[in-house]
């Protein structure tokens, strides 16, 4: 297994001083940090699939923070976003939250408040990434099934007994049992319940 890339805090802010002060703060607590002066700069750098989180100024000339969020959603990025807002930006912050931002924080902020939010975002990102990795693993296992095994799996998950499955597929009960054992083995399922949970997980993600 490849060693996981260390999560990074990405900062996008057009104000050089705000940007640099955030870089220093994060450096002071030992968090890897990369800074960008515009939304386009961040998109061009292709960092949105990296582990970490995004600290994003909501107001910027050119591409605003909200617009960058829309672009990232279009790219199916799961990077958690913490918006930095000024006074009176609450309506924009609400919009950002509705579009999936994890949090927002008003300038000027206490460093600990921001760091707490960053830590929560990083945990969320790690969780999301674990879940995604698991989903991908399940998909790979599903892809390794033969068409006949896939048919048996669907009926097993639908809760049918081997005898009923044998009747439905016009197979001997013994053959169904062999397929079923192969399915359990390929899917690395500990139990029937585990198997069902994995299949539902993927199905839910694809809805």
């Amino acid at each position, binding site marked *: 297994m490849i060693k996981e890339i260390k999560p990074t805090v990405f900062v996008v802010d057009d104000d050089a001083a705000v940007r640099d002060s955030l870089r220093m*703060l994060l450096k*002071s607590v030992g968090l890897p940090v990369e800074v960008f002066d515009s939304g386009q700069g961040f998109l061009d750098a292709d960092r949105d699939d990296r582990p970490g989180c995004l600290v994003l100024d909501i107001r910027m000339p050119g591409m605003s923070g909200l617009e960058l969020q829309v672009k990232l959603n279009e790219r199916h990025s799961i990077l958690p976003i913490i918006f930095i807002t000024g006074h009176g930006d609450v309506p924009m912050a609400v919009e950002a939250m509705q579009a999936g931002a994890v949090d927002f924080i008003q*300038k000027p902020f206490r*460093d600990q408040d921001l760091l707490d939010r960053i830590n929560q975002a990083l945990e969320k990102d790690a969780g999301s990434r674990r879940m995604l990795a698991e989903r991908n693993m399940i998909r790979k296992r599903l892809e390794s099934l033969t068409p006949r095994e896939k048919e048996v799996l669907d009926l097993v998950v639908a809760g049918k007994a081997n005898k009923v499955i044998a009747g439905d597929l016009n197979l001997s009960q013994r053959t169904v049992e062999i397929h079923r054992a192969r399915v359990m083995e390929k899917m690395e399922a500990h139990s029937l319940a585990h198997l069902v949970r994995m299949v539902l997980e993927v199905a839910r993600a694809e809805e």
Partner: protein
Amino acid sequence: MPRREYQSLLDSAVDAIIIIDHRGHIEQFNRAAERIFGYAATEVLGRNVSLLMPAPYHAAHDGYMDRYQSTGQARIIGIGREVRALRKDGTEFPCDLAVGEVQGSVPPRFIGFIRDITQRKRADELLRRSESELRLAQGLANLGNYVAHGDGSEPDYCSTQLRRILGVDTAEERTPVTELLRRRVHPDDRAKLDEAFANLDAEPAEFDIEYRIMLADGTTRYLHHVARLAHDESGRLLKHVGTIHDLTERRQSEDEARQLQDRLTQFSRLSTMGEMAAGLAHEINQPLSAIATYAQACLRFVRSPDRDDTDVLQALEQINAQALRAGEIIRRLRNFVRNREVKRETVECSRLLDDLRTLAETDARLQNVRLNVEVEADLPTVNADPIQLQQVILNLVRNAIDAMADCPQSRREVVLTARQLPEGEIEFIVADHGSGLAPEAAEHLFNPFFTTKAGGTGLGLAISRSIVRAHGGRLWHTPNEGTGARFHFTLPAATASTGE
């Protein structure tokens, strides 16, 4: 004298001649009397002369006659006097009356000479009226005139209104006009007046100047003085005549109008700042927020066991720089709204635009609009009030930003250009990509209180245009290429070259 000659002498007289006896009965009534009074002699002979007199003379006359009889004193005899007489038709007229006693007649008889002075009185009245009308007109126009006799051959004429304008008192009644003016002229304008008087001696022997005088009570008056030499019919130099117009009120109302304009301009700047308050708060919040974050990072660096002093130093330097930045924003803001004297100075366009940028970018950032400033290198300086110019540009930039409120992101850009035209003027252009100007908006654009914005004062463009005009420039608009509007204004380049 034979009777006939005597009669024709009486009848050829121009004046009425009436002879009465001691009771006042008419004995003689000549032709002129018939003409003047409208009676035929036959109608009045033997009747009391008082029938020719209107009340109250009528009733008093018998009394005069009685007194003369008893005392031998007649007040009227030997002296002319102006009285009123009564015609046959009942109308009255003014006349000069002279009465004499017929010598050697007992009982006494009297002879009266009566001259109808209606015409003369009317002429007097007309003259009096035209003089008073002239005085009234001069008073209304605050205009005075004079005739000065430089050789002292006769006293100078100085109209009532001119005396009033110059505040002439009785002690100066006979002072020549030129001396009155020299005594009062404002020290700074003395040379101008002396030169004007000196120029009267040479062709074209006239002048037309404005200067100030100071009166004894300390008030200053602004005079417009036109004068020339006048000659008599034979071409001989006679005198110098002049009119002096008191412009003080006009100058004062011009001053007041200018002060009002200045206050309005100031008010407009304040209201602009009011509208921009949210954006400005954000602008000041930026460095404050950076300062807080640097300070917090600094604390962490200092507390960390393996601290690196370069990080601490860097953070401290930044804290300093950002505090100065916040101060600078506040300084520019205060400069912009400060109640101040309007004053012209030599201004570098690039410096001006630099100072303006902070304020202009506030709105741009808030409205998510890009602001591009393109300033030609080596622009000449302008002679201007920098704050008022910033006000004009800020107004145009904010209008441009507002015009793009509904534009897609790709078009949200305001370009501010400053360049020198071939004629030497400097042109500023603010271009947007909004929806452009509707024809009815274009028509009323510069009218005060016309606005298309909710909460707008409608003063911005009207004030901007008057500021630009006061600086000797023009302000106008054209459609932008593609879409939107361009507002242009020009300023003359400062003439004095600065240290090149």
